[in-house]
């Protein structure tokens, strides 16, 4: 039977199942196949904080959404066009996100009365007509998998566990994905258990063959490779790109990287990744707590390393006092905050942008800290390099504000040429820098570079520059303890001026105003870039005029920020918080910025943002 092949320009698939069903792995593999094929893509993993939540329950559902297309895309997609539901809970938890006409592939083996009752289905949704608006493929995935693996000498349980690979094989057939890499991957992953490896490969192939032979799927789909700028690409998550950015920063600065960290979701992957790269001179130290993590990083910075600490919001709260010390010591330090839902423990595995004000103000005293935020998963690399550049050049702690969506989401990344990366080298102090009236020379640890206002970085081991620093206010220049009122006023203002001065050393805020006569500006920061840009495209596609700007630097703001904001009648600030950037923009620039906010633990949907933008355009 020859099946019909249809061309599509884009597809959004969501794999959903129990936390133990291997949905993240399935999604990762499909993503990898898709990347290899050359589509543009964007992913959104969504999983519970519990490692194995009770089986078959709504809170235990884990999902992975993938958007892929034959053109460049910006988001993981507002709504899936295909849902793979491995059990009733996965169906129930995700059905409300599906548009009418979407395809649903369900594993009927899991639709027992008991399993359905557990999630509140009084009757089977597969039979009661409640799914009539959708195109349902009811397939006994478990039975088919176990049947396909009858010849393998493995337990029934192990055979059943391969059902995710059967589903992956089926979807790979349905969308014409290349399969070799997945076969290789399975053999590598289960290298120590060759029987399990071959069983998984067999399940994967059985899924593919099932698609080809079953009458249930009359059509398969092709999504042509995307025409992206030329270059070498790989797929990458935000946490991995950020880790590579930190390794790169050390290489570009010719300094050892020292990561002091305490495990916390969703930042731990950075610690895991850096621990693999000791051959780059990267030291990782898993500390006894968040405070010790940053303390060790700061101690290493004092010794001449690029000190880094990685954490999430609750960890930043614990590190605040040490960040204040770093502000006072004026030593380079990177604080990576992979933001998650708060307050308190909040939503550990869900995304949010609600630590901006904590990064900006969450310390005692006047303690300015530069803030850099990546805007897409792959951009975490460049943002980490930029944060390190500022930290090293200006001898200051710097916040790098990623978030859970960037951390775990992935996209193709056009690899930079390492020769194009910036030179981050800075010079340590080697000589006394102050000549006294009597001709003697001494070292003044707080005598600043007049350009950058950075103080000298004199590391222990340098003869003649022995000095003591600390959290007590220091006298300008000489650096001794000083309680003098005028000196404190000067030092507070100087530390602020140093951070403010970075505005001269960063790119101006770029505005995408396609027609040049938009009256509405939408401005964001961090991971909302994709949804905002997609929304702007939608509005423009329908003839709407809107300008977009996105802030990489949140402290200081780019020098032209005021000018940009004042060039538009209306300024919209979408944020995954209750208006933190909007508060800063209003306070700093006296603009009547309108907040649009959601704190649902998920990225914005671009259609929702497009709707908001349209309404504002109409009101102007």
């Amino acid at each position, binding site marked *: 039977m020859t099946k019909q092949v249809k061309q599509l320009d884009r597809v959004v698939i969501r794999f959903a199942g129990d936390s133990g069903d291997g949905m993240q792995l399935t999604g990762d593999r499909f993503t990898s196949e898709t990347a290899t094929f050359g589509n543009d893509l964007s992913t959104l993993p969504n999983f519970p904080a519990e490692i194995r939540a009770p089986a078959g329950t709504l809170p235990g559902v884990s999902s992975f959404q993938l958007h892929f297309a034959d053109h460049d895309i910006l988001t993981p997609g507002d709504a899936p066009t295909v849902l793979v539901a491995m059990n009733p809970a996965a169906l129930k938890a995700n059905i409300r996100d599906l548009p009418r006409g979407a395809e649903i592939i369900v594993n009927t083996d899991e639709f027992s009365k008991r399993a359905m009752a557990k999630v509140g289905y009084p009757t089977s949704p597969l039979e009661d007509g409640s799914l009539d608006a959708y195109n349902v493929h009811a397939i006994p995935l478990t039975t088919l998998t176990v049947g396909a693996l009858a010849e393998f000498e493995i337990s029934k349980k192990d055979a059943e566990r391969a059902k995710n690979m059967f589903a992956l094989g089926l979807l790979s057939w349905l969308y014409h994905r290349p399969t070799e890499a997945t076969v290789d991957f399975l053999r590598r992953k289960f290298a120590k258990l060759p029987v399990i490896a071959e069983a998984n490969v067999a399940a994967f192939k059985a899924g593919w063959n099932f698609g080809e032979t079953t009458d249930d799927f009359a059509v398969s789909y092709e999504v042509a490779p995307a025409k992206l700028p030329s270059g070498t690409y790989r797929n990458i998550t935000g946490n991995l790109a950020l880790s590579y950015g930190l390794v790169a920063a050390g290489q570009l600065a010719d300094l*050892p990287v020292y990561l002091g960290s305490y495990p916390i979701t969703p930042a731990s992957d950075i610690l895991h990744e850096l621990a693999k790269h000791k051959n780059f001179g990267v030291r990782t130290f898993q500390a006894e707590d968040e405070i010790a993590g940053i*303390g060790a990083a700061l101690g290493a910075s004092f010794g001449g390393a690029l000190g880094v600490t990685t954490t999430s919001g609750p960890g930043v709260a614990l590190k605040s006092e040490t960040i204040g010390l770093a502000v006072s010591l004026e030593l380079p330090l990177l604080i990576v905050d992979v933001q998650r839902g708060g307050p308190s423990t909040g939503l550990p595995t869900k995304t949010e942008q609600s630590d901006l004000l904590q990064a900006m103000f969450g310390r005692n005293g006047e303690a300015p800290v530069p803030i850099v935020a990546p805007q897409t998963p792959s951009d975490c690399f460049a943002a980490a390099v930029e944060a390190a550049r500022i930290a090293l050049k200006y001898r200051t702690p710097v916040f790098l504000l990623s978030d859970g969506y960037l951390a775990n989401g992935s996209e193709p990344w056009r690899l930079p040429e390492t020769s194009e990366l910036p030179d981050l080298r800075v010079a340590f102090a080697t000589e006394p820098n102050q000549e006294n009236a009597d001709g003697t020379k001494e070292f003044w640890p707080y005598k600043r570079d007049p350009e950058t206002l950075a103080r000298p970085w004199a590391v222990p081991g340098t003869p003649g520059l022995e000095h003591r*620093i600390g959290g007590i206010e220091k006298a300008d220049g000489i650096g001794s303890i000083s309680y003098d009122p005028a000196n404190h006023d000067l030092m507070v203002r100087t530390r602020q001026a140093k951070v403010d001065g970075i505005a001269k050393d960063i790119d101006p805020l770029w505005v995408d105003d396609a027609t040049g006569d938009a009256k509405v500006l939408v401005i964001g920061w961090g991971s909302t870039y994709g949804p905002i840009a997609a929304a702007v495209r939608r509005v423009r596609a329908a003839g709407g005029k809107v300008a977009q700007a996105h802030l990489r630097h949140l402290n200081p703001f780019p020098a032209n920020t005021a000018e940009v904001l004042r060039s538009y009648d209306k300024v919209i600030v979408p944020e995954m918080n209750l208006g933190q950037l909007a508060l800063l923009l209003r306070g700093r620039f006296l603009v009547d910025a309108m907040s649009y906010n959601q704190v649902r633990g998920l990225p914005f949907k671009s259609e929702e943002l497009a709707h908001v933008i349209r309404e504002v355009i109409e009101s102007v």
Partner: protein
Amino acid sequence: MSESANGAGGFPSLALIPKADAKQSMKDFKSDQEVRWCPGCGDYAILAAVQGFLPELGLRKENVVWISGIGCSSRFPYYLNTYGMHSIHGRAPAIATGLATSREDLSVWVVTGDGDALSIGGNHLIHALRRNVNLKILLFNNRIYGLTKGQYSPTSETGKITKSTPMGSLDHPFNPLSVAIGAEASFVARSIDSDRKHLTSVLRAAAAHEGTALVEIYQNCNIFNDGAFEQLKDPAQRDDVTIRLEHGQPIRFGAEGQYGVIRGAHGALDVAEVAKVGEDAVLVHDAHADNPELAFALTRLGDLTSNTHTPIGVFRDIARPVYDRLMSAQMAEAATKQGPGDLASLIRGNDTWSID
């Protein structure tokens, strides 16, 4: 590089630290800062002992770093002409760990107090001890909060009347050395601010130790807790309460050496007159015993807060792998196995595609 006059710089623990070219004196380690402790404070004597001792190590002073937390004792680094950091309350061991584990060519010392180390910074202290990072921690114990003007500390005796405990404190105190041994410390010692010779000998042993050394120094706060260690200082009674521990020697004390430490019931130790129990019953001190039982029992001898039967000296000094050396070994192993890092190859990974 030359060896120092007496060879202390030749300790294996200091092997990676550059040595001074010329003989040093106490003056080399004095900074130009005016010392601002209260007149009569025990810290002066400790500072003098440290400034007098450091030249003995013969290390380049730029390779010596003092890191402190917050409290009276934590002003210490300002008065030494080495590199130094006066950090934040309780965190000095964590900061020093980052420095020591990234710079093996430095001799890193931590100065802390009973509040700084055992209250707000208790977590960092125990973890530094268990890791055995190459740090020397001097814990000045005056059993009171001085810089905040006289509240009880985690080593104050129960019932202590202070500003924050007008009816007497309810807290049971920590025994710092019991805590340290419980935290797997590889070196534990105690000395007294006023006994410079003894203090110097303990500092020497700490410097020679490979790994974390905890030295508790009884320090008199003459403003808020004067006389806390009076029994150990008063010539009339000090010999009858002070037990000077020396490795390999019978544990005897008293003006005539008339008392000895013997085994008591249930693993505890007792004090007895040697004449009554016989010399063979007196325990011989073994600081190098891997089993911490004797060292721990010694920390429990007598009543801590009334200073009866107070052992001083090195309780425990065992060889255990040093964290920073282990870390360096892993770095070297990774470099050998993986080869020098290549950034372009790292970011490329194994799965790329090209678009023309």
